[in-house]
């Protein structure tokens, strides 16, 4: 979240400065809609549910756009989206030769994720209708799980702790860079625009995980390895909103 605020604060003065020099229009969008998680994480040996969240979740978004000319402009936006872990099967996290004596999985853990982006926009207007296309770059948050297990080997006294750590230590939310192309279809009535807003967020980095296997008797680390999902995550946002132009 800190990175997002820094990103916005870094670019906002440039936009506002441009506004004082020119008199082109500004648009403030307020959008609400659904966020469709298109990410099906595949981890290989570990459970895919480490990063999986429920497919559809609500979001709200605010966007400020400044147009340098009748067509071209720049925008900055901030999105708040609800995300809940999906309670998928995680049995493949424990090998068949072991019993699961207990785990802490926080299956229904949910939180509000933030993301912010900045970029360029191009507007085409015809009478009261307009289409705005965008391409932005930003930083977004992803919900991560840090489950731990106590496992016992079948047929003997061996006991181990397994901990999956998002990142190197412990991280419930990961901040990752993304690209987001988008399009808004607007109908202008007086100074208010009514919009249909579609955005696609493509993360360009993966959340890495650390797998830690520890002997429960001695606390010695037996195995430590890092892994990441095979594919990059992405979200599709479909929203409705109103905008004020100045």
């Amino acid at each position: 979240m800190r990175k997002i605020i820094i990103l916005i604060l870094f670019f906002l003065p440039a936009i506002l400065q441009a506004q004082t020099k020119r008199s082109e229009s500004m648009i403030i969008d307020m959008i609400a809609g659904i966020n469709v998680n298109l990410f099906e994480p595949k981890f290989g040996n570990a459970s895919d549910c480490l990063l999986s969240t429920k497919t559809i979740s609500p979001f709200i978004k605010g966007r400020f756009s400044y147009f340098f000319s009748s067509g071209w402009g720049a925008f900055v936006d901030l999105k708040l989206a609800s995300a809940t872990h999906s309670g998928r099967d995680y049995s493949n996290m424990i090998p068949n030769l072991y019993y699961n004596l207990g785990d802490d999985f926080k299956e229904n853990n949910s939180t509000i994720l933030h993301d912010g982006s900045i970029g360029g926009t191009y507007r085409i207007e015809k009478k009261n209708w307009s289409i705005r296309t965008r391409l932005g770059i930003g930083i977004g948050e992803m919900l991560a799980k840090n489950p731990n297990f106590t496992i016992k080997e079948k047929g003997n006294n061996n006991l181990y702790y397994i901990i999956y750590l998002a990142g190197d230590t412990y991280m419930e939310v990961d901040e990752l860079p993304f690209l987001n192309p988008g399009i808004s279809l607007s109908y202008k009535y007086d100074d208010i625009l009514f919009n249909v807003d579609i955005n696609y967020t493509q993360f360009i980095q993966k959340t890495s995980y650390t797998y830690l296997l520890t002997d429960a008797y001695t606390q010695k680390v037996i195995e430590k390895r890092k892994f990441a999902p095979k594919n990059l995550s992405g979200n599709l946002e479909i929203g409705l909103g109103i905008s004020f132009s100045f």
Partner: protein
Amino acid sequence: MKYLLRTILVLAVFLGMGFNCEGYLDEEPEYRSCKLTDFELHHMNNEGKQPVEATSDGIKKEAYILRIDLITDSLISNYNYSFYKLEDGIIKLDINTINTFNQDYPAGADIRSCFTNYPGTVEQYIGDYTQKGDTIDIMTGSKIYLALRTIPQAGLHSFKVTLTFASGKKIEKETTPIVLY
């Protein structure tokens, strides 16, 4: 005026939190005194998910757990609101093998180091930390689960357990023989 009221309210909340934390941290648990009257030894089979009482068939030697039940003059459960504390705490727990344990431990040898507190979740668990110099006195549970971590030779085994108390008193017991295969 409203700022003054808000300031007073915030101060009151913080002061209240401070008093509460201080009180909570300083609170001493109220222990009830009890006496150890006896103890029992049980062979536990830990091949499955949880340790279970051994049968006459014996136990796989990699899955042996020695359970020591501490019997006091008070009924102790995990759900007691206050802990019980032994009047005469246990300062040492020795285990000696009656038979030859393996080539490193002949009959009569001290084999306490071959056992480790079982870290799995078991009912009424109380750890034995006397090897680290601690005393077993606060009865957070009543059953000591000691997992065998050094593999013995296959055959008939029995163990002698000696508890030494802070007063110097000692009590000892022997397990029934068990086949470890």
